[in-house]
C-alpha cells in the first residue's frame, strides 16, 4: 500500500516523477552556484548567498559534499577556538564579526519550529605567552588588535603569576590576554545549525564528488595589449558516492570550499597548468597537513578560569568540561610533518614534543594521563598560512574560500559573507579582503601572520 502511496505522491505536482527511473539521488541538472565542499565554510557561503540575494529565492545553490558523515572534515575535528589575537588587521575584523555572529546565532540561524542552538561557548579567552624575542612583535600585534576593536590586555610575568598561580613564568617576557569575545565552542553544533538553516532556505545538498570541470576558454587582450586566456566553467561533473554514475551540473559560479582538498579541486579546473612563473602556472598552494589533538586528565590541573593557553614553543592547551580534562597539542615543524595519507594518531609525538613543554609551563601537568587523541587536517596554505578568498584571475567564475591553515572555523561566518558579497555585488562591501585574493600568489605579496599555531 505504501508503495502505491509513494508512487501517487511522486506523480502529483511537486513530486520528482521521472517515468523512466528514479533520479532522486542525483543532483539537479542545473544550478546557479555549485559549492564544492559542505564544511563550515561551504555552508557559510551558501547561507550568506541565500540571505543577501535579491529578490528572495532568486539563486539556486547546490552544495556538493562527498563525506556525508564528516568523518574527515576539518570542521568537526577542530578544537573549536576563536580569538582576535592576530597580527593581520583583516583577520581581527573577520574574527570579530564571527564572534558577533556566534553570539546572535539564534537570530541568524533561527528555523521555525526547531529548538534554539546552544553552541556551548566558553568565554574564557586566549592567553598568548611570548619570550624575550617575541615580546616586541606581541606588543605591535596588540596595538593593531586594539585598533580594530578587540579587547586584549598585556600582562607582565608578575601579573601573570598573580592571576594564574599554576603557570611557571620562566622564559615568559610578556603575555597577551583576551578579555572578551574569545574562547571556544562546539563546531559540530555550528555546522548542524548552518545545515539546518541552509536547507530551510532552499539550498540543495548532494552526496558526491566533483570529478571534472567542463570549461571554455577565450583568448582576450588586456588593456596593455597582453594576451590572456580566460576560462569559464560551464559544467561540473558530480560523481555519485560508491557508483560510477555522474551527473553533469550546468553552473554559472563554482565556489571552492573543499578545505584541505582544495588544491586537488583547483587542479581539476586547470589552475596551475602552465609554465611555472606565469599566472597560468601558479597553483593553489593549499595542501593537507595532519595535526594531532590529545585529551588528557589531570586532577591537580588548572581550575575553571583557565584560558586557552599558547606557549611560545607553539604548544597549546585548554580545559574541556568540568572534570579536569584538557585538550591540547602542538604544530610540528616542517621537518617533522606527518604523512597526511590517513588520520592515525602518533602517540610518541605527545611524549616527545607536546608533554615536555607543557610540563615545563604548567608544573601540575607533570602527572597526567592521556585519555584519547585524534587527528585532523589543516587546509594549509604553504605560501603565507592565511586564507584565499575571491575569484581566480583567469578561471573567472571559480571563487575560493579556503586555505585558512587552522583558523578557518573561527572566520567562517565572516568569510562566507565576504564571498557572497563578491559573488552578488562584485566587490567586498563590509570587510575588505583584497589582500587575500589569489593574485598575491603570482605577485609574491605575502600576508604573513605571526600568530599561527
Amino acid at each position, binding site marked *: 500500500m505504501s508503495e502505491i502511496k509513494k508512487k501517487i505522491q511522486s506523480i502529483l505536482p511537486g513530486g520528482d516523477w521521472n517515468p523512466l527511473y528514479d533520479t532522486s539521488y542525483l543532483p539537479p541538472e542545473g544550478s546557479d552556484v555549485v559549492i564544492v565542499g559542505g564544511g563550515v565554510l561551504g555552508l557559510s557561503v551558501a547561507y550568506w548567498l541565500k540571505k543577501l540575494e535579491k529578490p528572495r529565492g532568486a539563486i539556486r545553490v547546490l552544495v556538493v559534499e562527498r563525506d556525508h558523515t564528516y568523518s574527515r572534515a576539518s570542521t568537526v575535528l577542530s578544537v573549536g577556538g576563536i580569538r582576535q589575537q592576530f597580527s593581520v588587521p583583516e583577520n581581527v575584523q573577520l574574527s570579530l564579526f564571527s564572534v558577533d555572529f556566534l553570539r546572535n546565532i539564534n537570530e541568524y540561524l533561527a528555523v521555525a519550529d526547531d*529548538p534554539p542552538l546552544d553552541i556551548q561557548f566558553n568565554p574564557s579567552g586566549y592567553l598568548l605567552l611570548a619570550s624575550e624575542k617575541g615580546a616586541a612583535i606581541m606588543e605591535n600585534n596588540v596595538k593593531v588588535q586594539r585598533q580594530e576593536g578587540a579587547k586584549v590586555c598585556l600582562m607582565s610575568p608578575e601579573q601573570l603569576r598573580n592571576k594564574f598561580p599554576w603557570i611557571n613564568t620562566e622564559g615568559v617576557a610578556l603575555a597577551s590576554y583576551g578579555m572578551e569575545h574569545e574562547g571556544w565552542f562546539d563546531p*559540530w553544533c555550528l555546522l548542524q545549525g548552518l545545515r539546518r538553516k541552509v536547507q530551510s532556505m532552499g539550498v540543495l545538498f548532494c552526496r558526491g564528488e566533483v570529478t571534472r570541470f567542463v570549461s571554455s576558454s577565450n583568448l582576450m587582450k588586456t588593456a596593455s595589449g597582453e594576451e590572456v586566456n580566460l576560462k569559464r566553467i560551464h559544467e561540473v561533473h558530480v560523481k555519485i558516492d560508491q557508483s560510477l554514475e555522474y551527473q553533469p551540473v550546468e553552473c554559472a559560479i563554482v565556489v571552492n570550499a573543499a578545505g584541505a582538498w582544495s588544491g586537488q579541486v583547483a587542479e581539476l579546473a586547470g589552475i596551475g597548468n602552465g609554465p611555472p612563473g606565469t599566472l597560468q602556472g601558479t597553483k593553489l598552494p593549499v595542501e593537507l597537513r595532519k595535526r594531532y589533538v590529545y585529551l588528557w586528565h589531570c586532577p591537580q590541573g588548572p581550575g575553571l*578560569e583557565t584560558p586557552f593557553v599558547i606557549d611560545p614553543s607553539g604548544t597549546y592547551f585548554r580545559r574541556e568540561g568540568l572534570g579536569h580534562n584538557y585538550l591540547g597539542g602542538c604544530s610540528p615543524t616542517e621537518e617533522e610533518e606527518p604523512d597526511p595519507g590517513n588520520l592515525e594518531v602518533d602517540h610518541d609525538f605527545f611524549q616527545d614534543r607536546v608533554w615536555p613543554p607543557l610540563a615545563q609551563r604548567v608544573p601540575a601537568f607533570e602527572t597526567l594521563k592521556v585519555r584519547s587523541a585524534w587527528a585532523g587536517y589543516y587546509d594549509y596554505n604553504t605560501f603565507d598560512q592565511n586564507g584565499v578568498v575571491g575569484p581566480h584571475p583567469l578561471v573567472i567564475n571559480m571563487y575560493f574560500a579556503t586555505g585558512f591553515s587552522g583558523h578557518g572555523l573561527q572566520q567562517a561566518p565572516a568569510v562566507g559573507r565576504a564571498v557572497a558579497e563578491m559573488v552578488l555585488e562584485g566587490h567586498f562591501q563590509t570587510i575588505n579582503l583584497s589582500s587575500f585574493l589569489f593574485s598575491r600568489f603570482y605577485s609574491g605579496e605575502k600576508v604573513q601572520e605571526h600568530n599561527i599555531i
Partner: protein
Amino acid sequence: MAAPKASLHLVAPVWNGGTRGIGGLSRVVAPEGNQKKGRSLLQFLADRFYDVEALRDHLLRKQVSKVHQKNRPFNHINQRYGPYVAGAYFILKQGGAVRFQGREWIRPNQRGHFSLDFLKLQAVPVEAVDASGCAINYQGLDSLLALKELQSLWLQRCPHVDDWCLSRLHPLASSLQELSLAGCPRVSERGLACLHHLWNLRRLDISDLPAVSSPGLTRILVEEMLPSCEVLGADWAQGLKLGPEEQPRDTAGPTPA
C-alpha cells in the same frame, strides 16, 4: 549519571570522548527549547501557506526586536546628565531598582512610573542595582558598565542574561562586591568561569541555575576560583541520594575548601 550514596565523594562527570558522532540535534538543544507538545493551529497553517509562514516569521522577529528596543542606550540622557543618571534611568525604565550612594532605593511603582528626582544626582555614583526579572541583555549591559562604582548587582531571573553577558562584567572588577545570578535560565558553568576577573567579589549567588550541568561540582570549582568570595546556592550535595538516617545532616554539609 548514577547518584552515589551521600557523605561519600561527588563523582566528577566523565567526558565521554567520541561523541562527535552523526547524532541528531538532540545534543545541541538548549535546556529551554520551546518544544511544545501538540501542534498549534498557527504552526499547522504555516506549514501549508506561505502567507501564514511569513506572518509567523514576522511575529517572531517582532518579539526579538521588542527586546532590542528595551535595551537601547539612552545617549541623550547620558550626554546631558552623565553616565550615572543614564544608567539609573535605563534600569528604572526596565522595571528594576536603583540605589545611589547614601540614598534610599528608587523603584518604579505598579504601573512602571517613577519620579524623576534623581536627575539632579549627576555626580552621585550608583551603588546598587536590582535588575531582577528585567529583560536586560548583552546590549543593555552597555548602560550598566558605565557605573564604575557599582558594588552590588542583582540579576535574578533575568531571561536574557547568558554566558556572553557574564564575560562582559570585567570592567566592574574593582568595585563589584556582590553579584546574584539566581534563577537565570541561560547562565551555565561556562559563563561562571569568566567571573574570576571580579577579584573584589565577596558574595556570589548561583542558586537555581537550570543550565548548569552539575551544580555541586560547579560550586566547588567556583569556590576554588574565587577564594575570598562567599558562594551561595548550589548545595554541594545537590543531586545525591541521602540515606534516611543522614537526612538532618544534609543542610550542614562540609565546610568549603
